[in-house]
Each structure stands twice: as C-alpha cells, then as structure tokens.
C-alpha cells in the first residue's frame, strides 16, 4: 500500500473523529442551556396563569352563584371589581370540598384549559389565631372561662383588636379585647349554669394597623356537659349566594336558631325554605371587613350542638398534590394578597407539569 494512501486514510479518520467529537461536545454543552430555557419559559407561563386565575372572572362571569354551573373557563375575580385581585366570595367558596356545591379538581382543571399544567390552590387568612382555655371557675350562678389568644404569622406576633362571641343554645355573649405587641391577649367569658351543652367560642381579630387584615378562630367546649362532637356531626352547612343551606344528618335533629357573626355584628338568620332534611336561611350582605361565620344551634335528643361554617368558606386547599412529584422537577409557587368582601386573605398557587392526580 502506498504511503500516500495510508496518510489519506489516517487524515480522513482524524477528520471524522474530529467532526463527531465536535458534534457530541456541542450537543452535550447545549443540552442544559436548552432545557433551562424551556423551564424558564414554563416559569413565566405559570406566573401568567396564576395572574390569569386571579384577575379574570371566568365564563360565565357569575359561575360562582349558579349552583348547577361548571365554568367553561376558570377565573376567580369578582365581576366589576373596583380593584384588581378582588375575588368573588362564591367562586372561592365553591373551591371548598366541604361545600355541597363545590367543584372537583378535574372540573377546575378542564375549565383552566391548559392540558400540560397541574395546579394547587390554598387560601387562608393573613395571620393565624390560636385559642387556649387557661382556666375555668364557678362564680355565683355562672362559670367563668378565661381564654388566651395568640395572633401570629409564622411566629411573628401581631397586635390586634379582638371581638369574641360565645354561643350556647340561645345564649350569646360578646366580649371585646386585644392582643398586645407580643401577639398575646386574654379575656374572660361568663356562661350561666342554668344552661348546659356544647359552647362555641368565635374569635375575630383585626390587625390594629389595618382592619382589613382580619383573622378568625373557633373553639368548642362542653359547658356542664361532655366534650363536644366534631363540627359537621349533626348538620352540613353550605353557604352560597348569600343563602345558607343546612342539610341535617339525622331526622331527630331539632334546629333552634341560625345566626351570622362578624367582627362588629351578629344577627339571627331568617328561614327561606324548609323541608325534612334541609333548611335554607338568607344571609344579610354586611359591609364589615371581616370573615363571617354562620352558627346553627339545636339539639339531637338530649345532645345540644353548635355547628358552624365560615363564609367565604376558608381555609381551603384544592388541587394536585405536588408532594409526590418527581425529584428535581420544577414547581412554581406564587403568593398573592387578595380581597374577598373587603377582608384580605393570602392565596398560594402552586404550578407544575401534569401529574397523575387529575
């Protein structure tokens, strides 16, 4: 074999090797950049989806109030809201699975219309209240309960004004107090010993800096009786479109009263319709910048109860579970402060690739 052929063969081999290594090297170097670009685009897209969810009304615009309606496009904003990020009380309430008119995640996902994205929605008050029964003593004809309230956000104490109600059968007692700069406040409530049964304590808090920053806490206890059964044992309460639907779980349940409570007001609710298992009450449209709580009191045999529900029905969580997502997959989390009927809430939306939970 002539030496020129050997040279040519050798040179060609080296050139091929060179071209191949260049291609492989370029591909290896570019892959992470291309992947990163694609994911970055996803992040932007998810951010737009989160904003879209909170800034649009969806279709039909009043889908929250129509109990039989599943929206064809998803949006939680209030119709003709005077400011952005104001959400509709009924659209939010229908996200809560405890409401009989709630929507399933699959319906919400289809209404959003983005096939390759899954999401999770969490709505809660801006700060939390913890309630602790400190002491209980008998003074004359009544029992006096002392409670300690702590207002905080992730451990950060918050100074608040407090409005507390205790409800037991037809008895209602209101107390005003506050939490100091360390977030702790105490108050006493007296309940006559002539009544007994399940007592429900409702505590409304408004931050001193801005009353729109509100929170709510509840505490059930037995007054001269056994510990109360869990909320929802005797009736399922579902507020929507300023109507409270009370579905009674037993035919033996006797309802004595339904009331609505806010930071500043409380009223008895008037019956709208009534059947054997269901009672509907009209809820007044109060302008108080506060969550509102409806309480249904009554008896089942010898057991008294005080069932309650918040309107809007928060805290709530709905959507895909990202806790089992593939390690390393990107999940975008967005937090927004939203207004629902003048009170401020925190909404956290999580977005990711399509999971098997839909």
């Amino acid at each position, binding site marked *: 074999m*002539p*030496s*020129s052929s*050997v*040279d*040519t063969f*050798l*040179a060609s081999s*080296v*050139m091929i090797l*060179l071209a191949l*290594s*260049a291609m492989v*090297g*370029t591909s290896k*170097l570019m892959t992470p*950049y291309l992947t*990163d670009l694609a994911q*970055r685009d996803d*992040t*932007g897209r998810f*951010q737009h989806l989160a*904003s879209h969810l909170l800034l649009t009304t969806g279709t039909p615009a009043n889908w929250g109030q129509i109990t039989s309606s599943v929206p064809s496009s998803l949006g939680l904003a209030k119709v003709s809201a005077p*400011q*952005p*990020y104001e959400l509709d009380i009924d659209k939010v309430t229908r996200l809560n699975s405890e409401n009989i008119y709630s929507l399933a995640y699959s319906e919400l996902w289809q209404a959003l219309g983005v096939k390759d994205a899954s999401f999770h929605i969490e709505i809660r008050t*801006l*700060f939390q209240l913890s309630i602790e029964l400190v002491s209980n003593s008998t003074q004359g004809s009544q029992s006096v309960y002392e409670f300690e309230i702590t207002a905080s*956000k*992730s451990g*950060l104490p*918050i*100074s608040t004004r407090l409005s507390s109600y205790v409800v037991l059968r037809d008895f209602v007692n209101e107390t005003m107090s506050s939490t100091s700069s360390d977030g702790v406040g105490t108050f006493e409530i007296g309940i006559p010993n002539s009544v007994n049964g399940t007592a429900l304590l409702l505590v409304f808090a408004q*931050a*001193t*800096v*801005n009353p*729109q*920053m509100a929170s709510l806490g509840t505490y059930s206890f037995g007054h001269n009786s056994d510990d109360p059964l869990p909320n929802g044992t005797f009736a399922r309460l579902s507020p929507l479109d300023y109507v409270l639907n009370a579905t009674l779980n037993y035919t033996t349940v006797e309802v004595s009263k339904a009331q609505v409570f806010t930071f500043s007001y409380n009223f008895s609710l008037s019956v709208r319709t009534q059947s054997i298992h269901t009672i509907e009450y009209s809820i007044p449209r109060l302008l108080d910048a506060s969550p509102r709580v409806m309480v249904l009191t009554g008896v089942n045999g010898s057991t008294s109860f005080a069932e309650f529900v918040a309107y809007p029905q928060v805290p709530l969580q709905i959507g895909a579970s990202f806790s089992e997502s593939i390690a390393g997959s990107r999940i975008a989390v*967005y*937090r*927004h*402060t939203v*207004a629902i009927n003048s009170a*401020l809430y*925190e909404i956290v939306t999580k977005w990711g690739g399509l999971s098997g939970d839909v």
Partner: protein
Amino acid sequence: MAMFDRKGQIRIIESFLAIAVVFSAVLVSVTFPSAPDLSKQKSLASMGTQTLMTLDTNGTLGNLILQQNWTDIKTALDILLPTGISFNLTICDENGTTVNAEVIQNSNLLGREAVSVQYVCATRSQTVRFFVVRLQLAWMG
C-alpha cells in the same frame, strides 16, 4: 515519493491543529456565564407592587405616611409579605427628599440580590400630597 510523505504529514498536523482549535473553542464557551434567571426577580417585583397596591387600597398607606407612623408601615408589610423575604422601604416626597426618619426594614439586604419597585402614592387628605415609595425586596438565605 518523499513529497507525498510530506503532504501526508502536513494533513495530520492540520488535523491536530483543527482539533486544538475546536477544543479550545469548546473550553472557552464553557467558561462563558449563562444568562441570568430573572424569573425569581420578576416574581418578587410583582409581589412587591401588589403589596403596595393592597396597602394603598383604602388610603391606609398615605395616611400612615402623613402620620409618620413608620412602625405601622413596617408591621403592615410584615403581615402582607410572605415570610422569607427581606424588605427595605424608602419614602420620598415630590422633591425626591427621603421623608422616613426611621429605617423601615425587617432585615439587612446587604449582599443579597434585591429587586426594587417604585409606587406613587397619593394621600386622600384635603391637600393632596404625592410620595414615591420605593420597596426593595430580596429572598432570605
């Protein structure tokens, strides 16, 4: 014959030179910094703007500035912003003079990648006053 041998050697030298050029190009490209990820900054900026808008909804922010109540402004931001975010707020009047006598911040932003959002706040008093509110935000840790 000797001439062909030399041609072959030259080709091999050329090939090795080409390899050296390509690999040096690859090495240089590796050392190039990647484009910065701006999505977190955009998210922070959006959150900051929305927070200031919320605080100003019913004139609260303007009232607190007029009352020079810097403590309550800090408390409001502590409640509205999620934990894990450092902030520093500066308030300037129409002439650009800083009006907040105290530092309004929850922790130091030094050494952190911060974003800054500006918001013009008008008071709802009889004599309307304008303030430029500059909020700097950064992720903690």
